[in-house]
């Protein structure tokens, strides 16, 4: 299963990835699967660990997260 955190744009996805990396958390950037993107095109970070907790971390850091998913 893939744990995904969805961001609104490539810029936010890269900013989020770099932020997680600065916190010692690895994240892999990929295009949001079509079945998840109800707004259309977006990018996601694939993470290990608790995606909701990591999404909250990003939101607290001012990075807009549009959702999380497990596929």
């Amino acid at each position, binding site marked *: 299963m893939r744990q995904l955190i969805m961001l*609104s*744009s490539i810029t*936010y996805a890269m900013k989020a990835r770099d932020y997680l990396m600065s916190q010692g958390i690895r994240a892999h950037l990929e*295009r949001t699967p079509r079945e998840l993107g109800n*707004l*259309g*095109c*977006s990018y996601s970070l694939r993470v290990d660990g608790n995606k909701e907790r990591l999404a909250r971390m990003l939101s607290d850091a001012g990075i807009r997260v549009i959702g999380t998913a497990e596929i």
Partner: protein
Amino acid sequence: MIYFDNAATTYPKPKSVLSAVSGAAVYYGGNPGRSGHRISLKTAEKVYEARRAVAELLGVPQVENVAFTLNCTHALNMAIKGVMAGGGHVVTSSLEHNSVMRPLYALSKSGKVTYSIAQVDEERPFITLANFEKAILPETKAIVCTYASNVTGAVLPIKELGSLCKRKNIVFIVDAAQAAGILPVHMEKQQISVLCCAGHKSLMGVTGTGVMAVAPDIQLATVLEGGTGSASADIAQPDFLPDRFESGTANTVGILSLLAGAQFLKRRGIEEIYDHELSLCAQLYGDLSGKEGIRLYCPPIRHGDRAPVLSFNIEGMTSMEAAELLDGEGFAVRAGLHCAPSAHRVLGTMETGTIRFSPGFSSKPAQVEMFAQAVKKIAKNHAGRA
């Protein structure tokens, strides 16, 4: 040909920028932020790197607040029309480029916007500041002004104007075309709301590049909508940056040239480049000052209070005639109104325009000496025509 027209665009570019341009076309040919394949993502990584480098260089607090544009005029149009979409009053300066004046004029013709001109006192910035403050009305929504004049080189009191805008709760839009990459520009410290820059001047990028940086608390209406590679199912333009202001495919090659330019400036040091270019202006000023038949349009050159441009005229001829003769002598300078008739009204040079000397990071004192000799020769040959 010796090139002294860097205020129009810097030339030659640093070797690292030229290398980045050819590399971009070969290795980063994907469309960034559009696809999920490795070529697109690799290109997007590089664009993000450029965005981060420019944000750091210009003191922009968040990377996403840097939007890449086609040039400074594009950025200024988006800024001015975006801020003034709801109407209101603007204060601007007496030295503005047409990239500020024409959008303001167009908005005023539509009846939505009025504007006032604050006179710039080149030798007394506190007077300039007072003139701006006097021009503010209850309905004033923004101050829009140049950081430095592309005709006279005069630098406005930007930090003080930023504080004034903060105090009065009005938006501060800065045209940094002649400042970014050569003068101290820091969006956060100078309290600039929207910072507009040319990518192809002292930022050392290629033509077709510019930057609009928007402070996090500023809302701008859009003037251009389209594909952003994000939230595609939503018909509304995204409300998040930078996508909101980057519709259509980006000029990736240009953006990567900006990255190389930012890296060059970091290595070389903006202060060092400024000192070099200003010293060449001071050298020319010294060579031409007081010489018969030559008129200069600035006070003696002082570090920090002007951009490295020097306007002058040779009596008895228009600036265009003089520039043509200088071209024949092997020197590239710009002549005429420099798209800034406002400044020429202040100087009294609407009829003649001025010749503008603007050296670059690779210009040499020996070249400036040769240029001064050529100017004096032309002046001597045409003496008596005045």
